């Protein structure tokens, strides 16, 4: 059994699709970017599914479904420009899942708790405004936390059904959930603002172009460490 943060190999998925698994071949091949995680320490049957889309054209429609409380849209829709890295998002998922298994969710369900766990303050609405999908969102991340055995009580699903549903609902191009993609779409200034992190002073006697990228990388990981700490401290009084 998979306990690790291993993504299920893409070739497996194509194979299962070719074997006439319950999703049509075309959709499965097109939507190979959905990734399944089993985070450490959490019960192995608890799975986190992550799918990413770029060039999304129907963000207002998706947001409307969430506002209307459409039960078939039981996902966390996240604006990718607020996410620094895979670790950033998965840490929020970890806390959401941990609170879920310990029966202490603050929001409606696990999916919304993922968005809430990204926030550094205790305001749920504020968390959705900052990290959730907006009408202008172009790059989005869709997260679903659930039971890999299928079903969360209200409905049954599996990786294939999530995938086909999302590919149908989201008008955008699927893309891998990778750090390099996030690096491109993430807005560092926005992240700093969301977590109230002061912008670092420009270095006196600026460094050479050579060392520049290295410097930027360092800053990024520094910000990430801070962000994770602030997320962990949310709710502490």
């Amino acid at each position, binding site marked *: 059994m998979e306990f690790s943060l291993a993504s299920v190999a893409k070739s497996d998925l194509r194979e299962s699709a070719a074997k006439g698994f319950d999703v049509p071949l075309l959709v499965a091949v097109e939507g190979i970017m959905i990734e399944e995680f089993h985070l*450490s320490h959490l019960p192995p049957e608890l799975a986190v599914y992550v799918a990413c889309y770029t060039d999304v054209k129907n963000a207002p429609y998706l947001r409307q479904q969430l506002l209307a409380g459409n039960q078939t849209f039981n996902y966390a829709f996240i604006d990718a420009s607020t996410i620094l890295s895979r670790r950033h998002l998965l840490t929020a998922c970890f806390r959401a899942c941990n609170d879920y*298994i310990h029966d202490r969710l603050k929001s409606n369900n696990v999916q919304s708790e993922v968005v809430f766990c990204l926030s550094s303050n205790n305001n749920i609405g504020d968390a959705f405004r900052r990290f959730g999908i907006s009408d202008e969102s172009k790059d989005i991340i869709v997260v679903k936390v659930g039971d890999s055995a299928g079903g969360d009580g209200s409905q049954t699903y599996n990786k294939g059904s999530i995938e086909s549903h999302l590919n149908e609902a989201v008008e955008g191009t699927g893309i891998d959930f990778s750090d390099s993609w996030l690096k491109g779409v993430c807005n560092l200034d926005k992240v700093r603002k969301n977590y109230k*992190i002061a912008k670092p*002073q420009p270095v006196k006697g600026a460094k050479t172009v050579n060392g520049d990228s290295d410097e930027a990388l360092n800053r990024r990981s520094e910000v990430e*460490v801070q962000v994770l700490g602030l997320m962990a*401290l949310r709710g*502490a009084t």
Partner: protein
Amino acid sequence: MPTDLTTTIPAPSPTTTHVLPSPFTYSQPAPVLLTQGAEALVYKTHFLDPSTPAILKFRPSKAYRHPTLDARLTKQRVLAEARVLVKLGGVGAEGDGLCEVNVPGVLGLEWDVGRKVKGAEGAVRVRRTQGQEQGPSQRRGQSVEERVKEEEGGQKGAWILMEFVEGRSVKESLRGVDAYVKRRGEATSQEETARMNEEVKSLMRRIGRAVGAMHSRGGVVHGDLTSSNVMVRPRAGKGLNGHAEQRHEEESSSISCPDLKGEIVLIDFGLATQSIQDEDRAVDLYVLERAFGSTHPRQEDWFDAEVLQHQDGYRGSFKGANVVLKRLEEVRMRGRKRSMIG
């Protein structure tokens, strides 16, 4: 509902005397106990996936304290530590990049394992969970009653998940140097001795600078500065496998001198407080001085000159350092307690 627990959940290994709180109780691979203090147990484990090492610091609840008081104290302490770590993590390198504070980042935090949604206790919770047809617990083959019972009898306390710091402590490093010198005996050339001494001195200056940065930029007093609470992290070895292997080879050859290069990382902020008082800072230095002197007698004589007085050490690290060092002289005369009370 009769369910067989043994088939679904492996029993905790008999070597661990302490049961970890949920969700770490059945973690695979199991967390390894590294060290234990009066208040906390420190485990090495992993975060998100098994390839990312992490430190789990668990503060079990103390049975001899009144439950309400216990929960409050444990919470206050674990939160104080986490806040200081997050605060110092935000200080980072600034400007010249010389004055930097490195601390492990906080990855996860739980200040009360037994914490529940307001008002939902015991029996109420059973009803709540039964109401939700398919709670996560039932998937684990446990009935709700069993789960509630387990939770109530289970470990209480608080935990922090932190970044794992590669490298080794200053204590280990300096002991390594001592052992190396002893083994080589007369064979050490004068040049080599001089080079090694210079390396040790450089390390000591960097410690002084790091403490200074923590005091000034962080506004934090560590409270328990010792050479085992200061780590030397190899610069390139930020979680790189290649580096770990290399170190392993070094250790097996066992005659080489430990590498003292790398960045200083301060750990264990369990007794830290946020303070900018000269007195508190001076006491912090005094504690380090006494601890260092008794742990590393060979290097004791260098402490004042390198760690404290050197321009690249504490004195040069921030503006108010002179005043603190002046105060330190007073503290040395009287000891660390100013008042006679407590």
